[in-house]
């Protein structure tokens, strides 16, 4: 066995030796307490986020309702315009344009 091999074996043996430190039970118990505390924090956060989302939805409901009503009105007026004579002309012109554009692209 060379000097280097002997040294490597001695070094590996030194690494094998136990450290003097606190017993395993205390380490495991402390870490598990932290694990449980972390999980409790996560649970509290999840419930908190759900409650916050619910409160935000309730608080914003008047604006949400008004917004939906405005959108409905806008949709209705645009439909009425489209169904009229000017709307029909515009839609027809658009259809012709689309057909022409498709033909030009396919060449």
């Amino acid at each position, binding site marked *: 066995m060379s000097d280097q091999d002997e040294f490597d074996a001695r070094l590996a043996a030194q690494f094998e030796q136990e450290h003097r430190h*606190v017993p395993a039970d205390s380490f495991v118990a402390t*870490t598990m307490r932290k694990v449980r505390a*972390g999980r409790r924090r996560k649970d509290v956060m999840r419930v908190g986020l759900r409650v916050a989302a619910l409160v935000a939805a309730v608080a914003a409901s008047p604006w949400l309702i008004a917004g939906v009503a405005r959108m409905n009105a806008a949709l209705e007026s645009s439909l009425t315009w489209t169904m009229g004579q000017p709307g029909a002309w515009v839609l027809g012109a658009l259809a012709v344009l689309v057909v022409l554009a498709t033909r030009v692209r396919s060449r």
Partner: protein
Amino acid sequence: MESRLAVADLQKAPDTLVIALACAGDDSAFAEVMRRRQVRVRKFMYHLCRQTALGDDLAQQVFLKAWRSLGQLRSAAAFDGWLKKIMVSIWLEEVRRRKLVTVSDVELADLAVHHDATAARMDLDAALSTLPADMRLCVVLAYNEGMAHPEIAALTGAPLGTVKSHISRGAARLREILADYGEKS
């Protein structure tokens, strides 16, 4: 989550079963996994930082991170390699955060004064702390974890040549210091 096995049964259960239970959210199974591996993880951290309190703190961080990321574990058989990755990443984060440095020769000389029954251990840890952090990590992974050079390169993300050079230069430095220390004591 309550354990499906009694503590006594868990202690006798094979590793793969205990790990699978821990992955399913069983606290007692995770505690058992930790109990079986705590000496290895703590020793690894002590060798790297040379402080009992900091070593324990880092070992705790390893297990807390493992607990949080258990869902990412593909199979129980891969647990030890996966834990090793966490150990290395926690240590590298610590090095970046604290900008850990090596001890000076003066400090090393001071350590010789406190030479006692734990001399061999003091000797080794003191000698290790004189190595730069990345070299120390490679040496500890090679000698403490018994890992091959390519495995260390894959784990640390360092090129294989760098790992080989770190280990050979690190071991040479340790040999030099330990020989000096042996002569002084």
